[in-house]
């Protein structure tokens, strides 16, 4: 390691050997991080044999560290959730790090440690990886790209295009926490609060839901960038259905609502990292909700809307004066406003 304690262009091998692998701890399979790994897929009656689920994602959050997490834990949870939203049990992850020259080694060590802790808690291993150091300005401190591999739960038939008329729209927990938390530590816009990011893995929640509802769980999505509104619009378009939300049923924590009021943001457009929205056939709603509420990540689960008759792809919400208004996708970035 360089004595200055900063990442530099020479010696990514040293970084891997001296910082990254030790920091990953138990989550680094076999103790040696390679470019590729052989993964043994578990055999189990609960898993559909021969169906491998694979996902990929990039993480560029700034600042790197925020209340409730950091880019490392975010990357692990986000990848696990990508797999879970397809009805898969996560098995293994890879992680490619692009590090800006000059980033303090201690920051890197803390983030990778966080990845290791998160992965271990999820029951997954980080089996392969890559590290590159780029010149100053070529990356915003650090970017993380992951791939995830999982096995499909037997009985899961989940897809964005599988939603049916009269399906119930269920939400696993409060919305708006992650985006509001990142805003609270952003330069020029910061504020103090007790809110923390909701970043958490949802694969155990999904397993319970599929066990309870089977093929009646039609679609799942974790509403990250663009918020709940964007996720609903995407699914409604893919399935060519209309969705009607009940505004009074949306679980918006008081601090999220306050921050949105202060900056002129819409909670429906704020990013989440620890909740999911599910489209479930009416006959299984009670069972699935009970299953969700039995798991830590779903104690606050509830129904927030229904699939109704209406123009394909339209998401609407009934306003307080009884008018149905359209809930659109987020365009661009949600910027705070003065008017």
């Amino acid at each position, binding site marked *: 390691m360089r004595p200055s304690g900063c990442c530099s262009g020479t010696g990514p091998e040293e970084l891997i050997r001296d910082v990254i692998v030790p920091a990953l701890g138990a989550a680094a399979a076999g103790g040696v991080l390679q470019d590729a790994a052989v993964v043994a897929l578990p055999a189990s009656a609960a898993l559909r044999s021969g169906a491998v689920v694979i996902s990929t994602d990039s993480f560029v959050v700034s600042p790197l560290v925020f209340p409730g997490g950091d880019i490392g834990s975010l990357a692990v949870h986000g990848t696990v959730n990508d797999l879970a939203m397809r009805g898969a049990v996560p098995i293994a992850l890879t992680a490619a790090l692009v590090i800006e020259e000059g980033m303090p080694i201690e920051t890197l060590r803390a983030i990778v440690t966080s990845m290791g802790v998160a992965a271990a808690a999820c029951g997954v291993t980080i089996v392969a990886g890559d590290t590159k150091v780029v010149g100053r300005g070529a990356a915003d401190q650090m970017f993380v790209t992951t791939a995830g591999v999982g096995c499909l739960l037997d009985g899961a038939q989940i897809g964005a295009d599988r939603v049916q008329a009269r399906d119930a729209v269920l939400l696993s927990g409060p919305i708006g926490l992650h985006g509001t938390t990142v805003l609270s530590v952003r330069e020029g816009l910061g504020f103090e609060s007790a809110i923390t990011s909701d970043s958490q893995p949802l694969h155990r929640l999904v397993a319970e839901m599929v066990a309870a509802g089977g093929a009646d769980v039609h679609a799942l999505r974790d509403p990250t960038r663009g918020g709940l509104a964007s996720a609903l619009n995407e699914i409604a378009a893919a399935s060519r259905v209309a969705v009607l939300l009940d505004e009074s049923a949306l679980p918006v924590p008081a601090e999220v609502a306050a921050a949105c009021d202060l900056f002129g943001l819409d909670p429906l457009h704020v990013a989440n990292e620890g909740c999911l929205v599910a489209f479930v056939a009416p006959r299984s709603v009670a069972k699935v909700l009970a299953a969700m509420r039995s798991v830590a990540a779903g104690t606050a689960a509830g129904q927030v809307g229904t699939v109704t008759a209406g123009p394909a792809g339209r998401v609407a919400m009934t306003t307080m004066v009884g008018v149905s208004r359209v809930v659109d996708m987020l365009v661009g970035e949600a910027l705070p406003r*003065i008017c």
Partner: protein
Amino acid sequence: MCLGVPGRVLAIDDEGGLPMAQVDFGGIRRDVCLVYLPETQVGSYVIVHVGFAITEVDEAEAQRTLEVLRTMDSDALAAELGEPAPGSGVATTPSPGLP
């Protein structure tokens, strides 16, 4: 005009000659410049626009506005709309279609 939200003054301080307050907005806190409301006391509510307190909330007027609305022909309207007056102790009907 524009985005102004009410918040409660928690503490008053001075940032290099500028009077500043720590204001609570329903659980989130931010510092707010009090230069245009020099008489503000801790505990009062102010309307904040771009980090400046522009007016104090007249709590008596706030209550009066709500009272006027609540007693607005409430019995006649309630009978017509099938809704009980607020505070009457009767729960309003929940939205249809939800468990």
